[in-house]
């Protein structure tokens, strides 16, 4: 057992004039995650603490937050592996705080729905499945693992200053469909992101790939899209 200080961002915009930090000292064992620590505090010390959760197994993307300087999922962050006595926890960046560690995802989902985030299959659809070779399918490996946790959006400096920027998660999704052999609207997808607030707004700072809990690189996806757009534009 080790004593760890949880230093947690607190804010209720209807009550507090400004955010502040609360400190909680808890005893931690090998295997305890940051999410388990938050639950311990909520159950035993301060029931007013607000944070999101669902699967506790790194698959649902509910608990992305800023932990000791990095965006990650609280449920898969082992406390002792952080190697510190104090863990500072803040909400995701660039989204309005609703309370404590809970932010308003509305702009994030709005961006997502702007990019036609769905397959439009080639017509006519076959009676059974579309034939997609293992090689074609392997182009979707990893990129389909995005959980929309928002860690990349929170870490993206550009998303922070430009609310119209589609953001790394939405652009990654565009590349996911561009790579899919079954999709039929590549040109339309490229048109949507060929915009001041689309791929060209990304300044290749690479924060998104630093933080992605699924080891994805939205930065690379954006670079691939830029390349496709450029190759379309150059004179042959």
């Amino acid at each position, binding site marked *: 057992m080790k004593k760890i200080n949880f230093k947690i961002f607190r804010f*209720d915009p*209807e*009550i507090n004039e400004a955010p502040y930090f609360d400190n909680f000292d808890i005893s931690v064992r090998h*295997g305890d995650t940051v999410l388990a620590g938050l639950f311990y505090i*909520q*159950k*035993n010390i*301060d*029931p*007013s*603490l*607000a944070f*999101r*959760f*669902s*699967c*506790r*197994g*790194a*698959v*649902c*993307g*509910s608990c992305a937050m800023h932990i000791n300087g990095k965006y990650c999922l609280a449920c*898969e962050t*082992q406390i002792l592996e952080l190697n510190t006595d104090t863990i500072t926890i803040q909400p995701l960046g660039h989204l309005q705080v*609703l*309370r*404590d560690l*809970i932010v308003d*995802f509305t702009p994030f*989902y709005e961006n997502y*729905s702007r990019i*036609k*985030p*769905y*397959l*439009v*299959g080639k017509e006519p*659809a076959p*009676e*059974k*499945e*579309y*034939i*997609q*070779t*293992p090689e*074609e*399918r392997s182009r*979707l*490996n990893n990129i*389909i*693992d995005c*959980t*929309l946790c928002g860690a990349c959006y929170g870490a993206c400096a550009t998303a922070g200053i430009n609310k119209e920027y589609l953001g790394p998660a939405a652009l990654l999704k565009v590349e996911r*469909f561009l790579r*899919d052999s*079954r*999709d039929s609207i590549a040109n339309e997808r490229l048109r949507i992101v060929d915009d001041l607030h689309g791929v060209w707004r990304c300044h290749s700072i690479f924060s998104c790939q630093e933080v992605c809990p699924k080891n994805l690189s939205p930065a690379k996806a954006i670079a691939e899209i830029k390349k496709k757009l450029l190759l379309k534009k150059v004179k042959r």
Partner: protein
Amino acid sequence: MYKFDAIIIGSGLAGLRAAYELVSNKINTAIISKVYPLRSHSIAAQGGVNAALANNENAKDDSWEKHACDTIKGSDYLGDQDAILKMCKEGPQRIFELEHWGCPFSRTDDGRISQRPFGGQGFPRTAYAADRTGHAMLHTLYEQIIRINEENKCLTFFNEWLVTRLIVNDKTITGIIALDLKTGNLELFKADAVIIATGGAGRLYGKSTNALINTGIGLSIAYHAGADLKDMEFIQFHPTTLFTTNILITEGARGEGGYLLNSAGERFLANYEDSKKAMEIAPRDIVSRNMIREIKKGNAINGQYLHLDLRHLGKNLIMERLPGVVELAGKFAGINAITEPIPVEPGQHYTMGGIDTDMDTKTKINGLYAAGEAACVSVHGANRLGGNSLLETVVFGAAAGEMAGKYIKTNSKSQISNLECDEALREEEKRISRLFEGEGRENAFNLFEELNRIMWENFGIFKEDAQMKAGQKEFKNIKERSRDLRLRYKGKRFNFELYWLLEFLGSINIAEAIIAGAIERAESRGSHYRTDYPKRDDENWLKHTIASYSQEGPKLSYKPVALGYVAPAERKY
């Protein structure tokens, strides 16, 4: 007050599939969920979804009829055969539909949907997207809902709203009341049809693979409003959950050839009569029991867990087909699954029982439908086969959307007045404010933990009369103490103490139905295993348990199983 034609509670696979049907038909629909879309527990499904596509070279002779026979046998003959036939027959269509929508299924060499072997299945018929099939299906459905709603613009999401009550008038649903977690306000939603797609109640148990949100409150509100619960005593335990955290390690790991080993490194399933032939891919109930027996014999590693060994499969196969297992074992157990065996123990996994519905997802309340794990159609009977739950969500999710849509268009609606709805809202507001004012001594977090322990220890993998009755006594004490609850935090916005208290009050209703059903059912069938009645007893117990709500506790009755396709026989693997 809000007004919709249809309300879907829950945004997992069953809820979204129902929504697709309603939105396609331009029906004004709301999805109300206590979490954001894509956070529902469907996301966690790993191994795959069954349908007789006959794509695997070892499954050339597969057919939906054979899938149905396997499911009926797997259910230990408690599944309703008409519903099982519907599911298996419709299966391929529902899988191709998802594929056309973009679901990234893994592929065979010739580019068709790949299928792997799963427990209790006569052929490799489990389609999969690596070992993240639920994720792939849920994202695909959500994406297509966005598409269809761009066209039809008739769907509204209410994210982070907890439904606390159904309003029923003259046996007809008229609306719901939900708590907006963001504001802490209760709101009234009027609706002609309501679909419950809230998933299972796994978190009643201390050791569970389920998401933390799977408390069963969706079942509880329906039960409280007069819908019946069916076969609640049938709780599935999954053989391979990570030791201590109980995070699921897919059955696909065994389907792909993984071994279960004891402390001597021996494939111990060979030593048990009911698993010696099928070994690691014997059905879940059988493998789970033999694991507990092996642990009790003293053959566990460190006296506590067994090993799931993938090492002999080789890095390439593991990384191609089971990358999620490697990730989870690494992050949550500190184990490299390519070079080390994974410590596992059985844990609660699935709620076979649920809200009693017919084949058309109808409950006994007019206009109220249920689908997915929240419902009991019943296609899983006493034991669900892996890969059948994802199929159930899309087949019966679609059916619920279709039936609710027809109901809205054809039936005359209950003429409930605004006054009556307001009255229901006021009653619910009073109930919640009483919770805020309560000066009791108990807190819901502690009682929930006690409930978890009671259920795991007494209503788990092995059951026995005296032990269950002792558990029931402890449960009654918890129930009594639940009248003496207190909220320490009185704020309204995102009050998670209130949230967990409401979840807990829902859970105790469901636990009570499980307890009553399990004590009464004096036989062993599927997941319900009684050491004092180790044999199946078709003469007395080939029937569904029905639990109806009353203030004093569940009233049990029984109803016949739909047979007629396969005659009950001994379940041998």
